[in-house]
């Protein structure tokens, strides 16, 4: 009767038993789903972070450079490869259109990630585990991660960030006990190799 005015005492009519039953089942499942979310904060292992800070993008870039300088073990395709000590704070910088650095992490150790952007908003999408977080310039997104399995992981950008958006991809390497990052990354260019290669361009050099 949706098109006509309702009966005069519609608020006094008793709903049918089946509709009432369904409303109660639905209400119960709503409360259940709500408290499940709170329960997951207590018992679950995957939750969003309570911590974030404001940070100037240029200053964050400097922190990134200093962090890379400190723990750099080489380079891959022009991106620094960094192996920070376990249980430490690490930096991941998003910019148009790259992620820096390539982090080498140890399996089953906690790392405190500080993720921010130098320019536009980006999307941190860790594959193939498929974990996704928003990266916003001016905000340090603090996330504590514990990698549960060794392997090569990709960071895809899944927030549109201009015409080169689909070229923006980074890597995270998780190594188990006794493994080296080369197992997953192939050969890593160290500082030494770097000089040698540059030398190749010089015909008079050895």
């Amino acid at each position, binding site marked *: 009767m949706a*098109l006509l005015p309702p009966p005069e005492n519609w608020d006094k009519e008793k709903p049918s038993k089946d509709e009432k039953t369904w409303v109660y089942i639905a209400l119960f499942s709503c409360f259940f789903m709500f408290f499940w979310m709170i329960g997951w904060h207590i018992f679950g292992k995957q939750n969003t972070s309570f911590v974030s800070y404001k940070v100037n993008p240029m200053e964050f870039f400097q922190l990134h450079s200093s962090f890379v300088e400190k723990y750099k073990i080489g380079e891959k395709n022009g991106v620094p490869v960094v192996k920070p000590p376990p249980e430490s704070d690490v930096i991941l910088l998003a910019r148009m259109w790259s992620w820096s650095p390539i982090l080498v992490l140890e399996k089953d150790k906690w790392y405190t990630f500080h993720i921010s952007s130098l320019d536009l908003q980006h999307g941190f999408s860790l594959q193939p585990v498929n974990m996704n977080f928003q990266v916003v310039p001016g905000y340090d997104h603090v996330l504590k991660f514990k990698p549960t399995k060794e392997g090569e992981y990709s960071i895809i950008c899944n927030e*549109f960030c201009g015409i080169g958006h689909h070229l923006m991809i980074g890597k995270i390497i998780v190594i188990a006990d006794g493994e080296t990052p080369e197992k997953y990354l192939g050969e890593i260019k160290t500082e030494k190799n770097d000089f040698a290669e540059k030398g190749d361009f010089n015909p008079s050099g050895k």
Partner: protein
Amino acid sequence: MFRKCDITGFEVDKRGEALIKVNAVFAVVFFLVAIIAAFFLVLTRHPTIHLLPPHLYYRFLTLHGWNALLFWIIFFEIAGLYFGSTVVLNSRFSSPPLGWLAFFLMLGGALLINYTILQGKADVLFTSYPPLKAHWLYYLGVLLFAIGALLGVILFFANLVVAKREGKWQRSLPLFTFGLLTAAIIAIVTLVSGAIIFIPTFLWSLGIIDKVDPENYRIIFWGVGHPAQQINLAAMISVWYLISYLSVGGITPSEKISRLAFLLYILFINLASAHHLLVDPAVSPAWKVFNTSYAMYLAVLGSMIHAYAIPASVELAQRKRGYRGLFTWLAKAPWGNPAFSAMFISLVGFGFIGGVTGVMIGKEQTNIIHHNTLAVPGHFKGTVVIGTTLAFMGITYYLIPLIFRRKIVFYSLAKVQPWLFGLGIAMLAISMLALGYLGVPRRHYDILFSNAPFKHEFNPAMWFFWALFVIGGISAVLGAILWIFIVVLSVFFGPKLKGPEDMQIPIVPPPQEEKRNPSHSSILSPGTLTLIFIFFVWFMTYFFLNWKWLSATWYVK
């Protein structure tokens, strides 16, 4: 000023009717733009087809977003709001000149937005997150469109006030109009948020202010972007009730409970704008959990009530006609009526695909495995497209004879159209949800990373879903084109409707008396109860599956 409809008996204000027509016509025009863009997008997004180059892909995506999510739907909804506040109440349009002003503001805004996008000055996608910046004309277009739409919604309220003062309704509105009132209230929230955030953004694009905080923008922008889709939800559900009434004489099982469900929407549904900020920095999990759950899922309760009440309204009417078996009422339903089939596909598709995935994507923690993946557009293909768009397509088959006074051309094709469109979109939505589950990002030109410094290989199962994506996408495009074809031909070139004898699509009056002995069971709609139980089992299965998938990822806190 009034004409009396010889089919429904309503008193129709001709000035209001003209506004209903013009808004509905332009809704279809913008829908056509959206569909043309969609065709190119489907064939570009497939990793190996790439019909368009990257810059055009992002440009068409921006175009598709605006035309499909806002222009098509808001123009249609404004037409619907005018219809529900004048024709249904036998009342007059409060101020036709302001109605035309609203229309031209919306049209101007929409054209300006489309112009800047096509000029390549606004490759910022639908969300235009700062610091990504478009040309100032783009933001001006957004403001004009929002102000026009706001004026249209205010006129809806004015119409209600005028009608009440003139005694056209006493205490309670008809349920259909009450549902539209819900949509209008949500629209006010949406459009006011739009003004709050796009005015500073506009000034920023002109260089008058030097910064828009990206996090504040995200909060208020999603107060536009998400509630805009909740307007659709409320309007779609109103249309479902309406189609059930027109096509089988549907009997709402309980006015009280259905209205209560709409009240839950009014109060809580806009909180779900937080769905887009669940993995953001700067807002706390407490804010996230409360808002994303619409205050303890009370708006989901509203949806689950409607999911019951609408099929039950069909079942109650059909049972009174003497269809007794558990599903006889459904088997004997008027499947040849394109409005009815559109309504039913829309209802089932919305519930099983759009609704369930929406709840799971919108959970604070399980959002981690969905945010910005292809599952997100997959979800809203299941709500806005299979739900709202298909419902609006269905009701249009009634609007053509009743408002435009034309016969429907190619009526036999119209009977196939909801199936073609509905099943196509269902395939598209399911494939996108599956691809998202495999981690494929949304809004991404090249997931094979052909020119990128590193490679990433997704699970090869994705190729099956990409094929499904193209097949589903193309059939949906065909279904949409077929609908536009039928509607445009009918409205502009169709034979004039002379009277009730020319009605192809039946309006079925509610059954008067029960044919056989009335049932003594206290369960009045066992068929619906069975269907809703199947739905509930699927819902809970999907619920636990998601937590299982989430628990397989890295630990994070």
